Structure formats: structure tokens, C-alpha cells
């Protein structure tokens, strides 16, 4: 017996010594779940009673209530200890989660008693979200039921890794070992995909106390721990302090102009003054100057502590952003895939806008794609157009602004979010992030009634993208301008995208590193594609030194629309012309990353049009381009008219 009485806890060597011991006890948060009438509330009542957590006045009230509402004949109905709402007592069911507290000499416990009815699954999820272990109760007469499976799946999705499988009411099946073993086998079969680290099955009778806090003499065939022994011993430390530093900024504390502190709770890792931290969304970095606390500055703070950081630099940080380790940063994205548990009577609808909240950030979000719903019986992935209340599914989500996050598997704090209805403000769903999505996988095309061909027909032309590539000073812009004039004169609808001009506007934020050059080309290619879609003849005049990006641009366009034009002027000639004086400065080392000088130019191998400019005029070059265009249009017209000629 492990009965703990208040007397046995009473201090002998001074209260402070006793309390110091209490302080060092670890805490286990767990929940009880399972189907209706499996005995969850009875089990908690039994735990509270056997660990002497029930005061005399409470016991007296319980006895009164048992006579009034009880379902256990003359015995005390322990369920009435936790079913605290009138409606629950009247109906004899658990509606909402109750939190109860107890302690043994080894550990402190917070237990969430959660409802078994499917209708109240969201309240079970509430209890599970802060728990490290789940006691899954099974009525030995019933075996594994639908709600056993649903609760196990939700517990798994919410990150619970430890299951105590309480095969309850074992007295009602004659303490039969075979029944116990069959249920355990069923459960293991069903749950092996759920990623639980431990599943500890225990045969018990919550009503009579067998194997709850004391070993039953009626299950001599069982050699495992009692429930309380297991709860005292199970190790659930997740070592979040070992994970990279994550500090979601909750509140900016600015009492006066001289103090600007970032307040929040460390989600993972640790921090000390002098540490470099990075603002997740901007990439700006700063160093921690102080960790301010009421009792004096701290020399270190770890995950779980609610602290205030002062940085050495005036970086822009507000609520919703995150201060993180520079070595291991979270993802920052506006598209990601997530597991969703849906709580609301109104189904989740792809395309509808919800409010998405992480611990401190908030933005609007839509489900762009409901990939599938999970069948709680067999885990089958079922196609679905919506998620109904209590259903679980995998979705792609798009947010209006990017959020900083880790995957839920990496970090239970920074990988979770809730969804809120915009009108009712109800919490309608919970999400666990799986991974970020690249845009291309996820943005859905709007189907539009007026098409590319229609727009081009109206202009009486075929769209094309003439992509001029060549060294700076090779004559791209001169030739492009003249070409556009000629096209314009013949009634064509055109537009020139010029490298220098675009860098003053759309791409003003980009420099000349390789990464920025790639992004420079990507954006211009996207714009050119939209213009071609609008029916225009687009002339792109960009150095575009890398063949990979030119290929990327080519692949964006419809077949036959991309016309690579290599404006081929030797380096020496370009440097001699040097219309903007750039070569002289680059050769002097005043400009870095200059194509042809200290950054490579990859010449096209098979351009549609190869213009060798040496010794020729711009007019001659343009004639070659016009010739090419006319030949293509004639060829396409022949094809279009069905070979009637």
C-alpha cells in the first residue's frame, strides 16, 4: 500500500526543509481518456481518495451527492468528485475537462479528466494539449472502441508519447488474464502507427482500487506496476532546453524611453547575456544585453521561464515575432502543411478565411487544399471536401503574412496553432505544423474566362518573350529599343523590361550577389510570363549571366514563346565601349560581382537567335529579329488554319 496521509507528510525537521523537498519534486501532467462509461472519473476519484487528497467536508458532500445522483448503489460514487457541473451530475456524464491536483512522496500530478462522448472531443483535446501522458481507459467487457481509437489518435497528434493502457472493470470479467491479453494485443495492433514511445497495460478496477494504488491479490498473473507506480516512474522529459533557442515575443515592455524589453516565455533552449539572437522574420541580429527580472538580472534563462530580454541594438521586434538562435533558425513561410483537429459544428471549408493564432502571432489564413481526412478506425486517408466536427485531416494552409515556426514534431510550442472563426470568435480548430510548402506546390490557379489566346487575338498577334542576354555594354538595350520601335510601327503591342529600370522599382531591394541575381531573374521572368499571358510581345533586356535562370525563364513560358537572343559582343569590345563607365570601376576593384570581371557569364549554347554584333549596325540586328518573328508567325498561321494551303 502506498497510502499517503497528511500525518505521514507532516514535517518533523522544520517546515522549510519539508517544503524544499516538495519543491524538487517533478510534475507529471496527464489526462484520462477513452469511451463513455469506461470509468475515467471514477479512476480519478479513486486516485484522489487513495492519495488522501479529499478533505472531510468534501467527503461528506460526496456522500450526500452519491445518495442523490450516484450510480453505485450504496457505495460512494467517486465520479461525482470530478463531475463538477450540475448538468454533468444530473446526466451522469462528463461534459468538460476537470483539472485535479495530487501528490505522492515522489511526484506532483495535474490530471485532466476528459469527456468520453464524441460530441465533447474538443474538451478532450483541451486536456490533452498540455499533457505528457494519457491514461487510455478500456472497459474490459467492451474492448477497444471507436472512441478509444479517436482519443488515441488525437493524443498522438497532440504530441503525447506515453500511454498507460488501463484495462478497467477487470473485476467484471472475473479478473481474466486472457481477456486482458486480448485487449492489449488489439490495442497494440491498432496503435503501432501512432508513434507512442511507451504503452504500459495495467489490469485494474478503479471502483474497487485493484492495481490503482495498491497491488491486487486477484490478478496474481500480472507482474507489472500499479498505475500509481507507473505514473511516479515514467520519464517524460523532453529536454526542450537542448533544442535551439526560441523566444516568441509576447509583449514589448516600454515604460520609458530608456527601457525597451521584450517579454515572453522561452519555448526552447536557453539564453545568456552576450548571446547573439536573430529576429526570425527579418533576419536582423543583435546581442542580448540583459535578462531583466524583478529580483535582479539573470545570468541565464532556460525553456519554460517567462523573462524580459533587453538587446544591445535597436532592432525592430514586435509581438508575434521570435528571437532565435542564429545557428538554427525556424522556418518563416506563409504556406505550410498541417494536421488539423476540427472542433466546430460548422465544418472547415477550404477557401474560407480564418484567424490563425500561434502562441503570440496572429494572421488570417485559408486552407488551400484539404488533402485528406483520417478515418479514426483504420487510419485510412479519405478524400474530403470539408472537415466536420471532431474530424482530423491534413491540410495545406496559406497565411496572409508569413509566420515563424518549427514543425510540431521538432517543437510542441512553436509548431502549434489554433484557428478562430472570424465572426463568432469561437476556437474552431487546432493545428500541428508538418512542414512548409514551396509556393509552386500550393498556389492554385484561378480559372479565368478570358484566355491568353483571346487577349492576343484582339491584338492580332502572337505573344512572345524575346530574352536578350549578353554582357553589360554588349548593345542589348540599343537593339531592344530599336526592335520595339519597329514592332510598334507595324501595330504590335509590346513592352520592354530593362535590367536597370527594373532594379529601380520592382527589384530595388536586390543586390548583386549570386542569390540576388537569381531572384532578380526569377521576378522578371514571372513578370514577362504575365505580360505574355496578357498577349504582349515582351522584350527582356537583362545580362542574365546564368544559364540555369534562363532555363527557368524558358520553362515558365508556353512552348515556342520564349526566344533566347544572345547579344554576342566580346568582353574587350564591351569594356572599350563602357557606356556607363562601369568596366573601368569594376576593373579597378570599385564594383564587386561585375559580370565578366569577377562574376562569370555563362554564354547560351543554343540560343534561338545569335546576334554577333562586331562590325554590324543595330539596324542589321533588328532585321534579323524581325525576320525570325515573321517566319514563326507564318509557320503558326499555317498550322492554325488546319493545313488548308
Amino acid at each position: 500500500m502506498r497510502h499517503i496521509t497528511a500525518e505521514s507528510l507532516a514535517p518533523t525537521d522544520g517546515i522549510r526543509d519539508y517544503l524544499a523537498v516538495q519543491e524538487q519534486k517533478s510534475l507529471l501532467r496527464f489526462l484520462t481518456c477513452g469511451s463513455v462509461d469506461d470509468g475515467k472519473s471514477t479512476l480519478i476519484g479513486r486516485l484522489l481518495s487513495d492519495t488522501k487528497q479529499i478533505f472531510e467536508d468534501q467527503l461528506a458532500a460526496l456522500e450526500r451527492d452519491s445518495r442523490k445522483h450516484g450510480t453505485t448503489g450504496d457505495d460512494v460514487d467517486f465520479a461525482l468528485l470530478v463531475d463538477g457541473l450540475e448538468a454533468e451530475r444530473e446526466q451522469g456524464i462528463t461534459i468538460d475537462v476537470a483539472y485535479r491536483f495530487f501528490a505522492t512522496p515522489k511526484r506532483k500530478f495535474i490530471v485532466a479528466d476528459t469527456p468520453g462522448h464524441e460530441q465533447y472531443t474538443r474538451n478532450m483535446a483541451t486536456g490533452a494539449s498540455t499533457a505528457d501522458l494519457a491514461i487510455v481507459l478500456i472497459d474490459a467487457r467492451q474492448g477497444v472502441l471507436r472512441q478509444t481509437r479517436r482519443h488515441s489518435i488525437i493524443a498522438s497528434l497532440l504530441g503525447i508519447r506515453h500511454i498507460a493502457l488501463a484495462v478497467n472493470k477487470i473485476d467484471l470479467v472475473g479478473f481474466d488474464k486472457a481477456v486482458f491479453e486480448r485487449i492489449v494485443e488489439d490495442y497494440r495492433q491498432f496503435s503501432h502507427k501512432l508513434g507512442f514511445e511507451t504503452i504500459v497495460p495495467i489490469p485494474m478496477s478503479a471502483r474497487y482500487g485493484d492495481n490503482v494504488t495498491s497491488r491486487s491479490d486477484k490478478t496474481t498473473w500480472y507482474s507489472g506496476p500499479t498505475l500509481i507506480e507507473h505514473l511516479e516512474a515514467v520519464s517524460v522529459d523532453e529536454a526542450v532546453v537542448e533544442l535551439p533557442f526560441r523566444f516568441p515575443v509576447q509583449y514589448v515592455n516600454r515604460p520609458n524611453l530608456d527601457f525597451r524589453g521584450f517579454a515572453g516565455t522561452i519555448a526552447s533552449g536557453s539564453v545568456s547575456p552576450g548571446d547573439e539572437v536573430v529576429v526570425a522574420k527579418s533576419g536582423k541580429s543583435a546581442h542580448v544585453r540583459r535578462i531583466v527580472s524583478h529580483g535582479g538580472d539573470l545570468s541565464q534563462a532556460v525553456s519554460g521561464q517567462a523573462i524580459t530580454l533587453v538587446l544591445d541594438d535597436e532592432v525592430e521586434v514586435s509581438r508575434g515575432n521570435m528571437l532565435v538562435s542564429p545557428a538554427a533558425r525556424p522556418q518563416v513561410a506563409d504556406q505550410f502543411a498541417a494536421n488539423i483537429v476540427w472542433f466546430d459544428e460548422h465544418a472547415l471549408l477550404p477557401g474560407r478565411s480564418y484567424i490563425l493564432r500561434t502562441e503570440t502571432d496572429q494572421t488570417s489564413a485559408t486552407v488551400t487544399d484539404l488533402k485528406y481526412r483520417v478515418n479514426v478506425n483504420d487510419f485510412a486517408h479519405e478524400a474530403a471536401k470539408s472537415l466536420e466536427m471532431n474530424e482530423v485531416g491534413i491540410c495545406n494552409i496559406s497565411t496572409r503574412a508569413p509566420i515563424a515556426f518549427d514543425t510540431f514534431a521538432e517543437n510542441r510550442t512553436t509548431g502549434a496553432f489554433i484557428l478562430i472563426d472570424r465572426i463568432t470568435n469561437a476556437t474552431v480548430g487546432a493545428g500541428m505544423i508538418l512542414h512548409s510548402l514551396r509556393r509552386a506546390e500550393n498556389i492554385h490557379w484561378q480559372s479565368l474566362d478570358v484566355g491568353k489566346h483571346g487577349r492576343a487575338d484582339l491584338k492580332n498577334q502572337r505573344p512572345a518573350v524575346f530574352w536578350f542576354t549578353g554582357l553589360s555594354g554588349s548593345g542589348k538595350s540599343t537593339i531592344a529599343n530599336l526592335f520595339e520601335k519597329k514592332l510598334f510601327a507595324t501595330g504590335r503591342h509590346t513592352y520592354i523590361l530593362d535590367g536597370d529600370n527594373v532594379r529601380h522599382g520592382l527589384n530595388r531591394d536586390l543586390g548583386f550577389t549570386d542569390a540576388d541575381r537569381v531572384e532578380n531573374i526569377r521576378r522578371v521572368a514571372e513578370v514577362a510570363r504575365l505580360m505574355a499571358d496578357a498577349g504582349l510581345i515582351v522584350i527582356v533586356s537583362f545580362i542574365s549571366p546564368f544559364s540555369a535562370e534562363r532555363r527557368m525563364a524558358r520553362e515558365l513560358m508556353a512552348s515556342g514563346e520564349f526566344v533566347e537572343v544572345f547579344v554576342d559582343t566580346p568582353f574587350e569590345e564591351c569594356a572599350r565601349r563602357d557606356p556607363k563607365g562601369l568596366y573601368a570601376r569594376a576593373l579597378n576593384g570599385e564594383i564587386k560581382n561585375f559580370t565578366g570581371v569577377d562574376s562569370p557569364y555563362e554564354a547560351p549554347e543554343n540560343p534561338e537567335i545569335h546576334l554577333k554584333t562586331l562590325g554590324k549596325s543595330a539596324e542589321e540586328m533588328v532585321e534579323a529579329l524581325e525576320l525570325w518573328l515573321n517566319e514563326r508567325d507564318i509557320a503558326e498561321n499555317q498550322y492554325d488554319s488546319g493545313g488548308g494551303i
Partner: protein
Amino acid sequence: MNIALTHLQRLEAESIHIFREVAATFAKPVMLYSVGKDSSVLMHLAMKAFYPAKPPFPFLHVDTTWKFREMIAFRDQMAQKLGFDLLVHVNSDGVRDNINPFDHGSNTHTHVMKTVALRQALDKYGFDAAFGGARRDEEKSRAKERIFSFRNAQHVWDPKNQRPEMWKIFNTRIATGESIRVFPLSNWTELDIWQYILQEDIPIVPLYFAKERPVVERDGMLILRDDDRMELRPGETVENRLVRFRTLGCYPLTGAIESNADTLEAIVGEMLTARTSERQGRLIDRDEAGSMEKKKREGYF
């Protein structure tokens, strides 16, 4: 440095997080200050949460006019010492009608002077979030309540339809007129409270410590006769006895216990061996089964 946080450090961090969440997301929060030990802890945590700033919200005391005089003195002393913005609200309708616990009973008195008074004050100032010191271990309907507990425009709690509360992600969104009651001490137990008071050296009302006080035995409880508004019934006498209080409310409704615990250590020691719950000393909880839930639904904290 010890990497693992102690139990009290965890509880403290959780409470501070809750305070900051409200300050960051609500337009006009307020802290309900009832002067008891839980309020003292709550106030201490609020000072910590916003240090070096002061808490960015006022403290509201709903005064039923029947509180112990020592509570009122302590309240004013703390407000002055810590420099927080103290609002005191009294239901003037109740005062006009002379509502009191002796003539009208604990139920009516509590309803008019506490529940209605609180609703009046929240409406008067337009507070959209109100902190309270309730703990889940106190009472079975409190064990069911969310940390962020939604109230409709009539201040009504709907226990059968609470918002899910996942992780530490709190849904703080409300429409105009609605409000949220926030309970930063939800996961603290009575032992945690005393332990924290001891550890942090938090001032509490002297009534918690044993002392010779003039008490009357009535309806099985020891009532401190705090002023002469309490008339003695035939056969009743005032005796000086060594008593203290486990909880504090309106003096005619709060039973003292006989005790010689005059230090925090002794109080904790006494609590560890107690056989009855702290609310046992509160008349108002016992009027009928489920009475706390009923009061809460009507807007009581």
C-alpha cells in the same frame, strides 16, 4: 545554474505569461483585488510580470462594506506602498436598501453586494478582461473552468459551451460588450500559494495569523465580531479566543479556526495536517449543492 525549473518556478512562469498575454491583447484589463492571500500572490506576480514597469492596469476592489477592517487597512497600505491604481466599487443600491448578511442571508447579500456590484463596476469602466485569483483546486466547478473564461455581454458563464483551450495559445478575441475572466492561478494549489508566500516573503493580511480575537460561536462557526453592526442573539457571548482565518471574505460569513499558528511555517504545517478544505470556512459555498457554479454563471468570480 540548475537547468530544471522547480515546481514554483513553473507555476510562476505560467502566471506571468498569462498576465502578459492579457496586457498585450486587451484594450482595458483590470485586476480584481480581494485582499486575501491569493490576491496578494496575484499582485506579486503582476508586479513581476511587468517589471521594471508597473502593471499596465488598475486594481479593482469590490467592497461589500462587510469586509474585515484589517483587510481594508491592508488594502490601502499596499496600494500606497506599491503605487498601483486602486479602484473601489460599492453597490450604492445595496447600501441604500441596507442589504446585509444578517437580515438578508448570505445568498442575497453576496448576490447584491458582490456579484451585482462586480457587474456594475465592469460595465461602468468598460473593462474587457478581468483577472481573478480563483484556483482549480478550490472547488469542483472551478476545476472545470478555462484559464481564459469567456463571458457574454450579460457577464454570463456558459459552462457547457466553453472555448477549447489548447496549449498556451489563448483565444483572446471578443465582440463589443463581451469580456474574459482570466485566472492566472488556475493551476496553483493551496499549498503552492503558501509555499510561494513563504519563499517570496509576500505580505498578507494579519488575520491569517493566530491571535486572540473576540469571536462569537454561531451556526457552528466562529465569527469574529469586527464591529457592533453584528448584534448578539440571545445566549451568545463574545469570547476572546486564539484564532486565525484560512480564507477571508465578509466577516459575518467567514469562520475562524482555533489555531496557534502565528508564523507562515506554522500555517503551512497546520494546513498539511488539515482534514477539511479551506472553503469549509465559507458559508456562501454551502447554501446548496452546485451553489458555486450557480454564482459563477451569474457573474461571481
